[in-house]
């Protein structure tokens, strides 16, 4: 918002603006959802319309659009006109980025502020500091969709090995803080599987999937009832065309009713068991095993149906209709096949 420490002088009262003809907002007699504007906003937007009409693009336009943006960060026209002005008058963009940093932190959920950053970064071509700034913004809200989209844009747009290089440790930092942060899991998938060979690490697809399976299984062991991690496991397997059955030995450990006290005598690193005190059975594990059995065809169908029934009637009743549909669907498909 406009800074309230100094008295705001209306543009109508500023001598250096006296040459501009302000254009009041036109509304008919009965407008829809009119806003009872503050005098400051009304004044600034009257002058903005005056400027847009004459097409003036000058230094003072930057001042005016900043006033408007601080009062209403979603004013897309003020942002757009501001950017056009920056370019036309060849204003230095570094200070603009510094200003935008402050505006971003003040309004991190506004589309326009992130779009403006994209335009500036595209022109400035110095993406490295942007990742650090981005992490700073995520500290205030680790699931802000705009912040994450922007980070993905920076990586994909500039596509430099040194940008990608820090991403896995970065994601790990965030997952250590909150293992259920789905945005961080999504980002990990993007970095591990969707950047092609762009990581610059020269690792092959096999190596990536081996590392990621070990990683996600470790996180599941830590907190088994975490839909983000299970979706990641499924995603990694689907992406690399590995059958779910390859993970059956691991997932079976999570379908039981309680942690097996004797199970950790020989620690199987490939298949880490649930941590002590974990809430079992794990719904996602039951669902996963049902999929494993369904994939076996006729042989597996009765085992799958048993698991779906347990979800429908005991463990996940909100999705009763879904689990019953899965049963109908599987039975129909097996009898046809």
């Amino acid at each position, binding site marked *: 918002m406009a800074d309230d420490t100094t008295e705001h002088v209306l543009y109508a009262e500023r001598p250096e603006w006296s040459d501009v003809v302000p*254009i009041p907002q*036109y*509304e*008919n*007699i*009965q*407008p*829809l*959802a*009119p*806003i*009872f*504007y*503050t005098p400051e*906003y009304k004044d600034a*937007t009257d002058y903005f*319309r*005056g400027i*847009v*009409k004459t*097409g003036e693009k000058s230094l003072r336009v930057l001042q005016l659009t900043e006033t408007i943006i601080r009062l*209403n960060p*979603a*004013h*897309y*026209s*003020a942002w*757009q*006109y501001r950017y*056009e002005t920056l370019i036309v008058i060849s204003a230095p963009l570094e200070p603009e980025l510094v200003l935008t940093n402050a505006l971003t932190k003040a309004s991190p959920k*506004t589309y326009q502020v992130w*779009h403006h950053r994209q335009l500036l970064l595209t022109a400035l071509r110095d993406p490295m500091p942007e990742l650090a700034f981005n992490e700073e913004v995520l500290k205030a809200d680790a699931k802000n*969709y705009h912040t*994450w*989209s922007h980070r*993905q844009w920076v990586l994909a747009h500039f596509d430099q090995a040194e940008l990608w290089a820090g991403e896995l440790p970065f994601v790990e930092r965030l997952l250590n803080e909150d293992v*259920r*942060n*789905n*945005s961080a*899991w*999504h*980002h990990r*998938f993007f970095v591990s*599987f*969707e950047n092609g060979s762009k990581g610059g690490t020269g690792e092959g697809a096999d190596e990536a999937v081996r590392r990621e399976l070990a990683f996600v299984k470790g996180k599941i062991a830590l907190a088994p009832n*975490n*839909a*983000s991690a299970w979706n*990641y496991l499924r*995603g990694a397997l689907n*992406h690399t065309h590995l059958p779910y059955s390859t993970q059956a030995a691991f997932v079976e450990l999570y379908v039981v009713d309680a942690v097996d006290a004797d199970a950790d005598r020989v620690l199987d690193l490939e298949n880490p068991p649930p941590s002590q005190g974990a809430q079992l059975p794990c719904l996602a594990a039951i669902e996963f095993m049902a999929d494993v059995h369904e994939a076996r065809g006729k042989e597996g169908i009765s085992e799958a149906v048993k698991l779906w029934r347990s979800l429908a009637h005991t463990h*996940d*009743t*909100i*999705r009763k*209709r*879904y689990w019953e*549909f899965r049963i*109908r669907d599987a039975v129909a498909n097996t009898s046809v096949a």
Partner: protein
Amino acid sequence: MSSPSPGSTSVGTGVSDRMPLPALNKAGHVAHCVRCLDGLPASLVEMDASRMAIAFYCLSTLDVTSMAERQISPTDRKSWKEWIWDQYAEGGFHSGPFVSVSGSDTAHPSRGGAGVVASAATAPHLIMTYCALLALAVLRDDYALLNRAALKCMVGACQDADGGFETMPGAGDADLRMTYCAFVVCALLGDWSCIDLPRALSYIQRCRTYEGGYGQTPLGESLGGPTYCALAALHLVPADHACAPQARLQRAEWHATVRWLLHMQAEALAPVGGGGFAGRTNKLADACYGFWCGAALAILGAGDLLDAHALGAFLAQCQYKFGGISKAPGEHPDPYHTYLSIAAAAIISPDPAWGLQPLDPLINATPETARWAKEHVSAAPPEPKR
């Protein structure tokens, strides 16, 4: 549809063996919307850039609750239509007059042709264009002032080289919301020639994620709103269009998307938001996702797989005591959550006593309003094909 169907295309067969739902305070929600149409406080100045969307939510709330006829006087109807047309310029609509420099001169010249304007700052906005066309349909406008050629031109000019759609030509801010709006405009016009459909479909495909939903932009995290936009857009492509096969989900995709959508519903006894839908994995329920996810499931023919009673109970809890619906119980209401909650209830029909109009989940309007829009937006004499 080649995708498997869960046996029935009907949605929301109510579950009779459970507690009856609290009443839907329709009069209160309508009053909230009428208040917002009358005026908004200065604290909501950010809405200046989306007044047309507020008009759409409020008018549609009146429509779905069957109050449009009773609540909108002939005078209101006339002046509201006029206000919406005042925002029309260069083929599309602005969110409001906040950037109009032509004052009371309502004869905005259409620049038609190239779809290029002097400053993108004064160009019409694709989302607001969708909202305006639908709001006009609720008001049963005849679209006599609509320049179809200029509208097509504007929509076409919003498409970028990637296949996505921008809010304004050249804005460079494409995401799935505008893809959806562009597809609705084409569907209303009954003319898909103004966009590059194969490219648009490939953009949608690139927004799919490993979770089974769609992100707002390619490579983005699965999110309820964009998932609705993607699925509605795909299903708006006419079955007889050459691109129709490309617009259909594969069997495995259909299953993955239905699974992801249904997993967004919070278990009924969850400490917070039980029965409601979240927009992303491991996030809390929010009333608006009852619509985005519920309508997406209905579009996929899987609307009867969600727990309509539990969702209805959550939406009922989100009702504010003085009217309007908020994103979660105990929060303040707004037209966006009010309309989308009521639209969700119209689709899933958790309780017949709530007495709502049915809803066309693709256009996001009552079937009658959707039909009106299709008939009248496309009504101009056919133009020569390009």
